[in-house]
């Protein structure tokens, strides 16, 4: 009752008083809002050149329409399919190989009682998260090149030299490995936090009922952090067609182009390097649209399955 009355009163504040109290707030908002329109929404409108034959001199508005010609060209282009398939392969590999790693590390790290080892592991695994892909690519090249550490070890034990960085097939594993090295620590922290919030008495009860440790991990611990796991999974699934630029661009090289050319690098080379703005925009737009559809549908499906969504 009281709240309602207060609310009604608030609604009746005369415009002059409201304005006097809040004009500064609107003034503050002015810059970010103009910024948002200029740098986030204006480029979205600029995206219409995906349907035009873009002419630098005529500009975005006066260039002639061509309908879906660029999209048709993209779907007929081998390079485009190569980039799309590679994007999917690299992302799916990240999902299958990379996703379970931090979950498992977190679960077992949580079980050990030595606080120092626990803290040190967490600290060390999180560090590569703050290194740029330029640095990581530099380090990884050093490790896996023919004269690198890994091949040194191979030679010492008498194994055959492996061309990690020039065979497209093996290169993918290096890419996935680098991804785990770079980002496992980040997810690890999220999972550890989720584990801290779990109820230890459930595990104790299971112990008294005779469950082994592995049974407890599988049937008590992991189900308790399932919401966190599923949110992380949704986020990664939603991004399955989009790929960051720096990582494939820096990790790839000319010899593994057939595996390392992805949408983001393809758009860069076709658009910014070769200057085909309209065509590259169409490719980027395709990726964005599929990306949104993916996010929405994954979110919907997970809600149907009784998990929490992200939206």
């Amino acid at each position, binding site marked *: 009752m009281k709240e309602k009355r207060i609310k009604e009163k608030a609604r009746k504040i005369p415009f002059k008083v409201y304005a006097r109290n809040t004009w500064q707030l609107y003034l503050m*908002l002015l810059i970010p809002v103009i910024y948002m329109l200029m740098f986030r929404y204006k480029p979205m409108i600029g995206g219409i050149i995906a349907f035009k034959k873009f002419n630098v001199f005529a500009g975005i508005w006066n260039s002639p329409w061509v309908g879906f010609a660029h999209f048709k060209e993209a779907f007929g282009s081998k390079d485009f399919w190569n980039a799309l398939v590679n994007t999917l392969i690299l992302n799916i590999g990240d999902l299958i190989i990379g996703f379970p790693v931090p979950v498992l590390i977190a679960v077992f790290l949580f079980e050990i009682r030595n606080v120092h080892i626990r803290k040190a592991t967490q600290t060390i695994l999180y*560090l590569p998260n703050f290194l740029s892909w330029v640095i990581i690519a530099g380090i990884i090249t050093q490790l896996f090149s023919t004269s690198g550490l890994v091949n040194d070890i191979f030679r010492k034990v008498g194994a055959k030299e492996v061309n990690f960085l020039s065979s497209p097939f093996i290169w993918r594993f290096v890419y996935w490995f680098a991804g785990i090295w770079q980002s496992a620590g980040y997810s690890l922290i999220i999972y550890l936090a989720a584990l801290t919030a779990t109820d230890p008495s459930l595990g104790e009860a299971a112990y008294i009922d005779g469950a082994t440790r592995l049974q407890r991990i599988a049937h008590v611990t992991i189900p308790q952090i399932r919401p966190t796991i599923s949110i992380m999974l949704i986020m990664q699934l939603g991004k399955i067609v989009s790929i960051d630029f720096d990582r494939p661009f820096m990790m790839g090289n000319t010899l593994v182009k057939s595996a390392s050319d992805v949408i983001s690098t393809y758009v860069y080379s076709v*658009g910014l390097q070769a200057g085909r703005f309209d065509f590259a925009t169409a490719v980027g737009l395709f990726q964005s649209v599929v990306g949104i559809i993916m996010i929405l549908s994954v979110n919907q499906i997970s809600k149907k399955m009784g998990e929490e969504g992200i939206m």
Partner: protein
Amino acid sequence: MSELKSKADRRFQLFWNTFFVVISIVALIPIIRVVSMSLSSKDAILGGKVFLYPVQFTVEAYVRSFHSGSFVSSFIYSVFLMLGSTFVCIVMTVLAAYPLSKKNLKGGAVIMTLFVLTMYLDPGIIPKYLNVKSLKLIDTVWALIIPEALSAYNMIIMCTAFKGLDSSLYEAAKIDGCNEVQTLFKVALPLVYPTLATLALFYAVGRWNRLSDVLYYVNSSKLYTVQMVLKQLIEAVKLTQEEGIQSQLVADNIKSASIVISMTPMVIAYPFIQKYFTKGIMLGAVKG
């Protein structure tokens, strides 16, 4: 639990403790390796003698990196760029988040939705590039600051922090005659300091590590950040490797030294980063 003392448990603990020590060492090997390479003589590297510790210890590679003017000047420039860009980002984020944290602000919900949508609607590289170009920012330092000046994600985190403040504080400030600007600076900002520091670190690390926009928006080498200079260095070596030419391997210790130098700001800041980022991840992980 009585299990604490059981033999099986001790075995379990021993096994996993050892396992994680090994994992940590393995995760550190790439970094140990690059540091040892940077401190070894080029003869030792060429002879394949360097393993996980420096051989024929020398700081020659560092001296040479420091003497090559372009690397040092791009390093200093990158530090200033990082500081400046972080400042701009924080100002923008606060300017947006503070008003939007007010429940009664008319039109606030609409503006908030517009910000949230930007997280999902990506115009793509080319339209962004054409936009930056049409604003005549190409090849200026602003191209490396403004396009990423406000992240909706960080803004929402900031907004949540402001919302979390006790509303009686705002009322007290109002009664004491503070206007909104004064309330922001004297009441709200000091209280959200931890979130502010977290976001500043988010922005700073992002700026330091980002390569893509330097590649897209900047042509003149004066504006190259450390990452870009390092990329060119690394790529010079990459090419020779692919062609199987070993003659330029000399650059390997220099390259390692450059990698180590560009890592240092992050490694030095790591204790703070870890403290705040861990909190920051949690802020972001809270569904809101």
